[in-house]
């Protein structure tokens, strides 16, 4: 027994979810880019054949780029009072049409936002989010999911995984309670068939053996390779802000004499200011030290702490980088070295 949904019904699903008050997030056109957008109309949803990956991840829908974490005002005699924003009023949301690599970022982000102190802002949004991903029927030039431990049809993080099959249809695999509830609620759009039809899933040979990465990183903190690799890094945040698993943030107060907000804003370890002390001392004063931190964080520290690498192999960092700094290439180089 298998479940099928047609491409037309997938669009209809978006339509019905919008009507039911969901925020529907789907790959859509924005000028000459494909981005994850909260669509107003199912027509905006791009068919799967028109994109491999939107230019950024969908993390801003569970981890906004600028988020108020408390609202304060100055009351009697200037005494501050504050309240915490209530996310209970946020609508349920569904990401439709993301790739398995993007979906896999959620279990990875869960780790840091749930480490001892449970971040309500992330988890309340996460709980309201259903993920319907579409397996890749072709790989992009920069993709390396299979090197990172994933695959064009990984199930991690997805509530329903769709796989392209013949006749403009998708085989739908329901993977969670949330997925089950959705498939039931919008049951008329899915059909049951006898056998799982043949599906189109891309093959992608791994570019490197990821098991070789950490052993080298463990022993080569001071290796001259870092300067060689990172010499051209500009120290902007294009990689971090497009990356599905980058989660570092800044906290600032913004307001006026009447009051304001304490904000949680995306930040990037590539920035020269990231670790600069008030005294002026900076433990990572040079760009190759900052680039090293990025790689170590994703492929060593996160793995040691949480058992997962903070990278899904989507390749966006390289594609977006103004100087085309090639993470996949860096990892290939490292994997080829003696630990």
């Amino acid at each position: 027994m298998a479940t099928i949904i047609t491409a037309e019904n997938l669009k209809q699903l978006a339509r019905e979810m919008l009507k039911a008050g969901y925020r529907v997030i789907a790959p859509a056109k924005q000028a000459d880019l494909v981005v994850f957008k909260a669509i107003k109309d199912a027509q905006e949803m791009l068919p799967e054949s028109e994109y491999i990956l939107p230019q950024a991840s969908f993390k801003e829908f569970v981890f906004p780029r600028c988020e108020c974490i408390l609202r304060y005002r100055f009351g009697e005699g200037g005494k501050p009072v504050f309240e915490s924003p209530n996310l209970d009023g946020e609508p349920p949301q569904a990401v439709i049409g993301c790739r398995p690599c993007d979906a896999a970022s959620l279990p990875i982000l869960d780790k840091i936002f749930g480490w001892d102190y449970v971040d309500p802002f992330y988890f309340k949004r996460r709980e309201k989010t259903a993920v319907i991903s579409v397996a890749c029927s072709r790989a992009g030039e920069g993709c390396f999911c299979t090197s990172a431990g994933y695959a064009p049809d990984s199930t991690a993080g997805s509530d329903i995984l769709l796989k392209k099959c013949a006749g403009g249809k998708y085989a739908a695999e329901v993977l969670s309670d949330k997925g089950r509830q959705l498939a039931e609620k919008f049951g008329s759009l899915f059909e049951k068939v006898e056998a799982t039809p043949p599906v189109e899933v891309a093959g992608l040979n791994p570019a490197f053996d990821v098991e070789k990465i950490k052993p080298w990183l463990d022993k080569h903190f001071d290796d001259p390779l870092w300067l060689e690799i990172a010499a051209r890094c500009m120290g902007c945040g294009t990689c971090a802000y497009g990356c599905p698993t980058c989660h570092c943030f800044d906290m600032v107060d913004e307001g006026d004499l009447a009051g304001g907000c304490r904000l949680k804003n995306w930040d990037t370890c590539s920035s020269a200011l990231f670790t600069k002390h008030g005294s002026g001392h900076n433990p990572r004063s040079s760009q190759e030290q900052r680039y090293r931190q990025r790689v170590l964080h994703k492929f060593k520290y996160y793995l040691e702490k949480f058992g997962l690498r903070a990278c899904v192999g989507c390749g966006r960092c390289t594609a977006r980088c103004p100087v085309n700094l090639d993470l996949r290439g860096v990892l290939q180089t490292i994997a080829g070295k003696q630990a």
Partner: protein
Amino acid sequence: MSMTATLTNIYAPYLMTVDEIIDEAPGIRTLKLAFQDEAVRKDFAFRAGQFGLYSVFGAGECVFCIASGATRKGYLECSFQKVGRVTNALRDVEVGDTVGFRGPYGNHFPLDEKIKGHNVVFIGMGIGLAPVRSVIWTCLDERKQYKDVTIIYGARSADLMVYKRELAEWAKTPGIKFVKTVDPGGNPPGWDGEVGFVPTIVERAAPSPEDAYAILCGPPIGIKFTLPVLLKLGFPPERIYTTLENRMKCGIGKCGRCNVGGKYVCKEGPVFTAAEMKELPAEY
């Protein structure tokens, strides 16, 4: 019921009233803060070595250790130097004003677990005395549970010393070997303490490593030069404790900023042994 229904805002601070302002030295101030919430005032507890994030609404948050003793209830003290936006805003607050405090965060000096019942050597440098002072207070409040207590404190000059009242008390307290020093040239007329950099004075004072723990804090360069002296005196690296500071924002291991190698200073620190420090890359 949703699994997130009971989640609290982990970024929400306690509201504190500024009870007292003490100017310790030029540019260095201590604030004594009382919890505004009755229940919190009664129940709040922390361990010496832990830190918090202190905020002025509108200016932001800043990280300092909790400088008062863990045995003192209902209030906290923090000491800070004015270096930027938030510390300047903290200097503008007056007695009776409200500031925020989030904490206690981080690990602690293992007083109960390891240090009680043994000799303790406290070494502080400049404003680095603040976290050590938290341990000293806690220790002196339970004096009988420790054996010999040595306190060695140095600053660049006499006027830059912090907690001057307590230094005078400790000097007079029987059962405490107290040594104070200033850098060469920092001794005013009538100075009755040592003159020399702290590492030199530690070597001269030669505290015994026998059955002893060392707790030291100061600027990175001070720690860098004092550690070898302690090792030379025979203190094993597992019995030398220090506390690191690093740029922080969330203080709870999420914002990704404060790690030294694979250790988050806010979670696996700020207290580290010399043995643990040896394993860390020089990224602090």
